[in-house]
């Protein structure tokens, strides 16, 4: 797998304020990469640097192996910024045609029609964009981002201000883009649920510093941990409780109202714990594994930051 986006020790200073403090991470080709952070953390500044809208004070930025400030690389990137950048007085079709022309797209007509169809706006092609809802504008902005067939999509909070049905539709389109076309998607958000739902890798920026970066599942497993909850019928003998306490690989925590809770530090699975309980004659009524959420991870990092003050 090759690297689609790489940032190394990137710094950005506006007057005396250091907005990015030596950030670095890599996005692999085909990733759906979530860039998380609260408002003012530095997400938009990072995206503007990736799109060469502003220059980094120092550091290296490469996209598809080329420096991000190269004109040629602009043609391989599609983007949706937090403002959609559409001309209100022009129709949906005219907006896409304009962007297709500046990207030097051939066979503009069919490609524009195809993108409008893909985002469900074919029947509104001749309507002025000024009349569109926020959700429709975001879908059109996404069509614009895809009209020239980019390899990398950079999206700045694409779901913000969109109603739930619009979000579902937009999420579906993005997932199709990754699955069917194999494109790389880098998208910023402060919606943790949304990122956990669709991203395979993440980076978390906080006050201009990357606090966390990597594969989402690995990060959650390594940092957030998980719980195994087993509901039992009848009692659990004291001797078994002591045995469980003496088995650190299970990470036994509590027994309350017929519910055993484990936080295994390693690779112990539900079947290992249930197997042990059944072998000791315990009647197991149900068992499940619960993963820590990205929110738990985020909260832990914020707590760590507060603690280090």
């Amino acid at each position, binding site marked *: 797998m090759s690297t689609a986006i790489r940032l190394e020790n990137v710094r950005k200073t506006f007057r005396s304020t250091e907005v990015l403090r030596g950030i670095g991470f890599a996005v692999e080709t085909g990733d759906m990469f979530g860039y998380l952070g609260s408002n003012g953390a530095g997400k938009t500044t990072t995206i*503007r640097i990736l*799109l*060469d*809208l*502003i*220059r980094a004070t120092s550091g290296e930025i490469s996209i598809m192996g080329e420096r991000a400030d190269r*004109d040629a690389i*602009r*043609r391989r*990137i599609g*983007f949706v*910024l*937090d*403002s*959609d*950048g*559409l*001309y*209100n*007085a*022009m129709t949906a079709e*005219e907006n896409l045609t*304009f*962007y297709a*022309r*500046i*990207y*030097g797209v051939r066979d503009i007509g069919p490609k524009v029609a195809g993108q409008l169809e893909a985002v469900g706006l074919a029947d509104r092609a001749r309507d002025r964009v000024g009349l569109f809802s926020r959700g429709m504008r975001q879908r059109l902005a996404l069509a614009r981002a895809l009209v020239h067939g980019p390899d990398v999509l950079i999206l700045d909070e694409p779901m913000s201000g969109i109603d739930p049905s619009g979000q579902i539709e937009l999420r579906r389109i993005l997932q199709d883009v990754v699955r069917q076309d194999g494109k790389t998607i880098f998208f910023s958000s402060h919606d943790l649920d949304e990122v956990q739902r669709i991203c395979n890798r993440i980076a978390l920026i906080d006050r201009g510093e990357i606090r966390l970066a990597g594969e989402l599942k690995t990060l959650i497993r390594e940092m957030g941990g998980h719980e195994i909850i087993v509901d039992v019928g009848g009692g659990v003998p004291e001797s078994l409780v002591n045995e469980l306490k003496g088995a650190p690989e299970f990470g036994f925590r509590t027994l309350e109202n017929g519910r055993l809770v484990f936080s295994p530090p390693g690779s112990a699975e539900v079947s290992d714990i249930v197997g042990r309980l059944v072998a000791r004659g315990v009647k197991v009524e149900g068992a499940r594994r619960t993963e820590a959420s990205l929110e738990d991870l985020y909260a832990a990092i914020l707590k760590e930051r507060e603690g280090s003050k």
Partner: protein
Amino acid sequence: MSSLAPTIVAHLRNSYRLKGAVFVMFGVSVLLIAGLIALVCVLAIVPETRSPNPNAAEAARYLGLIVYGTGLLVMGINLNVFTANNLVKEKAQRLFESILAGPVGVRTLWMAKSLAVFLPGLVFCEAFAIASFLGVNTLIIAPRMGFLASPTMIFNGLALVPILYFPLCCLVLLVGLSANPISGNVIANIAFAALVTLLINLVTRAGLDVGSSVFTLVHLALAGGVGLLVFVLQLRLTKERVVLSSRT
């Protein structure tokens, strides 16, 4: 620069489809031009044509003033109506970020925006100026003195305003793009006010002949000065300035 033409077309569409703005531009232009023509005709041209010894040179001087003034009014109003208001909206909408994040360079965007304001202004300016030249000549001057026209009158009447307004247009858009768009409009307003004041002085005092070479040279020098200022300032035009000045 291959993106220049589509960018001009997009901005033309985005600006001149605003019916209200186009209506204001044409409405105000027609009113002011009618006032100018009425003023110059009643005060100067008609008395000249009715005098026992009509002076064709004097009548031609006033006709040149009408043609020049017509172009000046149309161009000035066009620049005022279609620069700052649009820029304020487009910057609030952060439209330029999306264009600049693509393959359009910042100077291409600036030039496209300037031409998207200047070119329609040029067409309207020439159309109105030619119409006023032919109208006044045909209806008022020709019946008594014959059709009046001279190369300098036509050149100064039709070409000087666009020659001055192109660099001015570039300056207004340059300032508007890289700083607060209102600052750009202040320049357009000041320039318009200054040029209209010049026109009023010419009408009332008639100290300088619009068809004279001195008038031509003053305009060319002024256009050159503004052009030089634009050249110096455009060296500071960057994507970052445009993007950061668009912050809401």
